[in-house]
């Protein structure tokens, strides 16, 4: 409303904090050391390396893609909630070309990961021979190239328009970004579904589920938003953004995070109920391996720590507005995203139970360090708020 503290809209007022440069260098150093260790691990145990690397790749992909999808959701709905974190989302979606580069090493490990990539097994198995039309290495690689082209393309176009908005303040730009975000979101959901089938579901080529893709997408939303909220909390703890962020902004992110957590649980339970009710021999194998064997503890942890606890913590108003409590939820969810990806990928490769290997941590830290470094570099390039967006004054005064 009028009469509240005047908010500055000068670009210089939202210069990125100096600490980002240190984050960029520090993350790069940590990432480089972990990458060297991972390479050593790859030389020692090739199979284990690719298993760990697949999960690490999917983890950082989910954060970058989740941010990109939330940015498109913000452009599509033109919600004021997104303006405060738009730069964070854009910086994360801008790293997608780097994530595409992270995908390349997996191409050298296809036979280690996927049964359909081992010619002798395909020859011996009628079902794999049947699936070979779709599940074969050249087609697999071209599909991945197409997914990344679409993801990077939309992120790139939207960032260009956003940069132009910073320069010119053209009032027609929000509408153009909206028109691009709409097909972008549809294509994202479709490509992410196919990507989940290619990269994760095909680890167990005898099992399929039609809701698997949206479960994967729901995980992206949680990972992207949790990450963006953590960065927003970091930015709000120091100048210049400490004056701009208010509890109500985090209240909005808390609500959205609660929605995503419930949505993710809804997809998870829908798949379980359908397969459990059908009780067909070829479908229940996936759950037998996860609910009855050594993975049952991980399944229980997902139910309690990925759904029940964040749900309860986010129910109360204070849980969403209080920076400390919200950051606990965001960190918990980011950890559980990693656990969830393990739970999705690895029972197909180590059915007896979770066997934590140091390479799991090393590959995740390696990709994470390099990724965070790129992210911090991109975030430091532009003012922390889209200063010429017509809705920014309203979003800043939101109370």
């Amino acid at each position, binding site marked *: *409303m009028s009469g509240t503290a005047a908010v500055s809209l000068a670009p210089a007022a939202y210069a990125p904090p100096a600490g980002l440069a240190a984050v960029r260098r520090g993350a790069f150093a940590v990432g480089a050391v972990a990458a060297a260790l991972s390479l050593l691990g790859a030389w020692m145990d090739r199979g284990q390396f690719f298993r760990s690397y697949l999960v690490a790749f999917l983890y950082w992909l989910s954060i970058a893609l989740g941010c990109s999808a939330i940015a498109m959701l913000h452009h599509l709905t033109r919600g004021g909630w997104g303006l405060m974190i738009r730069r964070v989302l854009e910086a994360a979606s801008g790293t997608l070309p780097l994530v595409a580069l992270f995908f390349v090493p997996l191409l050298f490990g296809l036979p280690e990961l996927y049964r359909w990539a081992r010619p002798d097994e395909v020859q011996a198995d009628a079902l794999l021979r049947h699936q070979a039309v779709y599940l074969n290495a050249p087609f697999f690689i071209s599909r991945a190239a197409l997914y990344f082209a679409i993801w990077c393309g939309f992120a790139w176009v939207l960032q260009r328009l956003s940069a132009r908005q910073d320069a010119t303040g053209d009032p027609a730009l929000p509408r153009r970004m909206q028109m691009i975000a709409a097909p972008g979101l549809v294509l994202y959901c479709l490509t992410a579904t196919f990507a989940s089938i290619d990269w994760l579901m095909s680890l167990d080529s005898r099992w399929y589920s039609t809701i698997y893709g949206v479960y994967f997408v729901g995980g992206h939303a949680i990972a992207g938003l949790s990450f963006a909220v953590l960065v927003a909390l970091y930015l709000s703890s120091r100048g210049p953004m400490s004056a701009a962020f208010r509890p109500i902004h985090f209240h909005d992110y808390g609500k959205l995070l609660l929605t995503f957590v419930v949505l993710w649980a809804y997809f998870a339970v829908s798949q*379980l*109920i359908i397969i*459990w009710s059908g*009780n067909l021999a070829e479908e229940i194998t996936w759950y037998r391996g996860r609910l009855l064997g050594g993975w049952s503890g991980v399944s229980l942890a997902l139910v309690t720590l990925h759904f029940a606890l964040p749900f309860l913590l986010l129910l109360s*108003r204070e849980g969403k507005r209080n920076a400390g409590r919200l950051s606990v939820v965001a960190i918990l969810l980011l950890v559980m995203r990693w656990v969830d990806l393990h739970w999705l990928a690895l029972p197909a490769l180590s059915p007896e139970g979770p066997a934590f290997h140091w390479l799991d941590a090393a590959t995740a830290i390696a990709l994470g360090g390099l990724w965070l470094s790129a992210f911090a570099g991109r975030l430091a390039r532009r003012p922390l708020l889209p200063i010429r967006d017509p809705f920014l004054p309203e979003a800043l005064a939101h109370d």
Partner: protein
Amino acid sequence: MTRPRTVRLYGQMAEFASPHDLLAAAGAARSAGYRRLDAFTPFPIERLSETLGHRPSRVPMLVLIGGIIGALAGYGLQYWVSAVAYPLNIGGRPYNSWPAFIPITFELTILIAGIFTVFGMLVLNGLPTPYHPVFNVPHFALASRDRYFLCIESKDPKFDPASTRVFLEGLSPSGVFDVEY
């Protein structure tokens, strides 16, 4: 023969031209020690409830209680029917088959929480109220158009018809009215 009419006051009300004046007046009334305050505006005004010293709503707690009752009732109903009262062997599954019970448990959680939300809200805010003294002020109809009203109730321990009127007039309102029962 005329009997002097005893005027029972519900309170006194000041009329303001802008939400900003109303917020300032509400703050002044709070700092002057008035506690039984209410404000009437054509649209929600940010921070007004906090300025008036209104407690956070108790509706969220009622919703939570409703949700818990719904979840327990939903699960309990299915458990009692399927495992206690009329156990049936369905495809060899256990009588207490929790995955099958989730949808109904979920639905009843939402239903009872929703019912508690609506009726809890109505009980707590006293709606519907067919008669309310504030409508006895002729100007009050403007509260749904472009005027902002602050009312100090006579139940307030600090309320005094003479001094409260003086206090309200000191807030530069466009008018001060007695609110009669």
